[in-house]
Each structure stands twice: as structure tokens, then as C-alpha cells.
């Protein structure tokens, strides 16, 4: 049943999430790498319109040495444009192949799929977001995770300036050994580059980089 759901999603009913903008402007190309104590990931996507993007996603999950190679589609379900703020609701999903050589898995390969929603609100000084995701990787793993962020910009940068955000991220993984992870981080954003760096409550480094052209 779960595979049927993911198959339907894979046929075009996909959904995307919301931090670092999973959908770009028409014709925009985005490359992003996200790295923290749990995983490393790479996402490359192209946006034919301002409402969807399609791309490739690679993930490496450290605890069970699982890799996922997937096609990912992100959709902007709804955007609220206000004079001084903007809010978004995204759906992002992917289907692909998972592989693990950890312990008993011994080279196990399975179909993998994930889906989740993301929402954000921001003005030029404040930011708040939430996203979740369910991942199914056959016998290798299946898990749910969710995270939220709040952010504050110490100054209002204009177009072309270096933009600085101070953020706090809280992740919740009900099936993990440590259910909650708290990560204070700094986001720097200028031109086509976005960098995020932080350290969580277990002393693990977070480093994200987004290039958008």
C-alpha cells in the first residue's frame, strides 16, 4: 500500500519542503548540499516554473550506512504574498534506490521513496519554518522526521548585500536514539550563494551550502 502511494507520487502527484527554497524562479538551477550529524546530502534541481522543480537527490545516512539515489520533485502548493511578508506551503517527494552494506544488510538494495510537506513564513527580519518527511526504504529502513526553525536577521540588507540570519533549528526523530536535536546556526546569504553553519547539542557540525543560478 505504501509503495502504491509512492508510485502515485512518482507519477506526478509529488510534493516539496521549505527551507532554502525547494523551488526556484522559472529557468532557475539550484545545487544544495546539506550536512549534519545524521547525514550528507546533495540535491540538484531545475525549475521550469516558479511552482515546481525536478531534480536529483543523493543522501548518505550514517547510522545504517544507507545511500539513497532518487529523482525528486518539489511543488509550491500555495504562496501568500503580503506587502511585508511571504508564506509558502510546499510538497516535496522522491523515488529512487536505497543501498546499505551495514551489518546484516550485506549489500541490500531496495526501492526508496520519501515525501513530506514544508511551510515557512518570513519578512525581512523574522523567519519561521516547519517541515516533515516520511522515508520508506524497504527492509533497510523506514522513518519519520520533522523539524522547525526560527530565525532573526540583525539588520535589513538590501538587494546585493550580505544577508545574515541567526537561527535555531529543532529536529524530532521519534525512532532515533536522541529524539530531539537542537542546532543554533548562522545563515549567510549573498548573490547566488547561501551558507549555513552551526553545531548541535551533541557537538556535531552542521554545514549547508546552496548555489542558485
Amino acid at each position, binding site marked *: 500500500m505504501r509503495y502504491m502511494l509512492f508510485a502515485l507520487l512518482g507519477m506526478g502527484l509529488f510534493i516539496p519542503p521549505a527551507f532554502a527554497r525547494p523551488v526556484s524562479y*522559472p529557468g532557475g538551477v539550484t545545487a544544495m548540499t546539506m550536512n549534519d550529524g545524521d547525514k550528507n546530502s546533495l540535491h540538484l534541481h531545475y525549475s521550469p516554473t*516558479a511552482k515546481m522543480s525536478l531534480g536529483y537527490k543523493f543522501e548518505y545516512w550514517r547510522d545504517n550506512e544507507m545511500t539513497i539515489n532518487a529523482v525528486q520533485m518539489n511543488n509550491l502548493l500555495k504562496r501568500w504574498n503580503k*506587502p511585508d511578508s511571504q508564506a509558502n506551503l510546499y510538497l516535496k517527494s522522491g523515488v529512487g534506490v536505497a543501498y546499505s552494506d551495514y551489518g546484516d544488510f550485506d549489500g541490500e538494495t531496495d526501492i526508496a521513496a520519501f515525501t513530506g510537506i514544508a511551510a515557512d513564513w518570513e519578512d525581512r527580519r523574522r523567519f519561521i519554518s516547519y517541515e516533515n518527511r516520511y522515508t520508506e526504504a524497504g527492509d533497510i529502513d523506514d522513518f519519520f522526521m520533522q523539524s522547525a526553525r526560527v530565525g532573526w536577521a540583525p539588520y535589513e540588507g538590501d538587494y546585493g548585500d550580505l544577508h545574515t540570519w541567526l537561527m535555531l533549528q529543532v529536529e524530532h526523530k521519534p525512532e532515533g536514539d536522541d529524539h530531539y536535536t537542537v542546532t543554533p546556526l548562522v545563515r549567510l546569504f549573498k548573490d547566488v550563494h547561501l551558507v549555513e553553519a552551526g553545531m548541535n547539542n551533541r557537538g556535531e557540525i552542521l554545514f549547508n551550502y546552496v548555489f542558485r543560478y
Partner: protein
Amino acid sequence: MKKFTLLLTVITMSFAAPVLAEEANLAATQAADAGDVRVSVNGLVCDFCARALEKVFGKQDEVENINVNLDTKIITVNFKEGQNLDDETLKTLIQDSGYNVEAINRDE
């Protein structure tokens, strides 16, 4: 002590840069030529929004360039000699970029 002074200088300049850039942006807006169009846009909250509008308008043959002011939420569209876009086209381009038009003002 020298390192501390250097660090303090870098931090101070980082925070001062946006103010200087803002003044330059304001001057560019005030220098807009007659015949240009000023569009008040909802949802302009970051550089990403401005870049999206630049990319979309940059593909139009009629457009020389645009200036985006995040403070006033106004974009100024500068047209090539003898060229123009009607209001409906402007609205469509901005909506296609992911934003909404609040008002369009044309110089007489």
C-alpha cells in the same frame, strides 16, 4: 591587540555595507528615466525575490533593465528606446515569477 582591531574593523564594515548599498539603491531609483514603470509588488522579502524578477524581466526584449527596492517593495522597469509592456503583461510576468502586483504607476 592588532588581531582584535582587525576583527572589529571587519565586523563594523560588514554591518555598515548594507547602509551604504541602500543609499546607492535609493539614488538609482530616483534617477529613473521618464517613461519607466514603477510596480508595487507584494511578497518582496529577500534577494531571492529580486533575483527572480530580474531573471524573468531580463528575458523580455523590450526591457533594458530593472531596479528592485526591497525597502519600498517597488520595482522600476526601464524600457529600451521606443519599447514598452502593457499592464497585463507586467502583471503576468510578475505572477509567473511568483509574486503579486499591488499597483502600477507610469510616468506621464
